[in-house]
């Protein structure tokens, strides 16, 4: 069952990202990205991370995608983007990507094939919360300052200049 779910979710994720590369319409891209994020949330749940899966679906597939869609509606570009004409850029980019892919495959070969985490309450939200408020208390508080700074900064940037 877990194997079937893994293959189903990974095929959905990879297919929507590939479709995003070929699609030229930003609203379609945003929808495909929401699908990819939701199925990634399912993959997180398969890896015994229910809290991360929930946060992924709420923040990525919810909040960030709403932000993207609002900006797409505000920008309102009528014409779709023509494809890139410089062929050598394609070739160079594809070559670089293939090199990175095989480099990282070499790294992954040295990883262990069996996982250590077997007990059922690994990744339980309560244990994650305890870790957040003890060992990672300072990063947690600094993150809240970062969120406030980002909020004020984006409000300041996106305001209309008054004459």
């Amino acid at each position: 069952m877990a194997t079937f779910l893994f293959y189903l979710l990974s095929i959905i994720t990879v297919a929507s990202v590939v479709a995003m590369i070929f699609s030229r319409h930003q609203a379609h891209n945003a929808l495909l990205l929401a699908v990819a994020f939701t199925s990634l949330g399912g993959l997180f749940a398969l890896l015994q991370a229910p809290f991360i899966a929930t946060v992924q679906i709420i923040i990525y597939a919810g909040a960030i995608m709403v932000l993207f869609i609002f900006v797409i509606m505000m920008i309102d570009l009528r014409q779709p983007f023509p494809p890139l004409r410089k062929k050598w850029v394609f070739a160079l980019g594809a070559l670089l990507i293939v090199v990175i892919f095989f480099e990282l495959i070499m790294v992954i070969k040295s990883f262990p094939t069996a996982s250590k985490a077997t007990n059922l309450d690994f990744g339980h939200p309560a244990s994650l919360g305890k870790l957040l408020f003890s060992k990672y208390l300072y990063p947690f508080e600094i993150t809240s300052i970062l969120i406030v700074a980002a909020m004020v900064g984006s409000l300041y940037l996106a305001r209309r200049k008054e004459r």
Partner: protein
Amino acid sequence: MSPVAFFILSLLLFTLGALAFLFKRDLITQFMAIEIMLNAANLALVAGAKTWASLDSQVVVFFVITVAAAEAAVGLAIILLIYRQKKNIRSEEINLLKG
């Protein structure tokens, strides 16, 4: 399910995101490609948490998601500003610093 399969999936997603970033020309889709790469890194971190039975990398994923939310807000505000100034969002036409 072997964790290596999850690592290979995250690697595939990362390279696809990098490909989308290099091949696309509008800023919004390039920004989406960055989000895909961040998510691929998150998947690798969660797979690592299960492989080495350590909850710390799940906490790191939590921080990555919060920082990505902040980054998306500021980045989209900057894209909006570029659109107001130039009336389009092609990344190749943003060459103010070109000598």
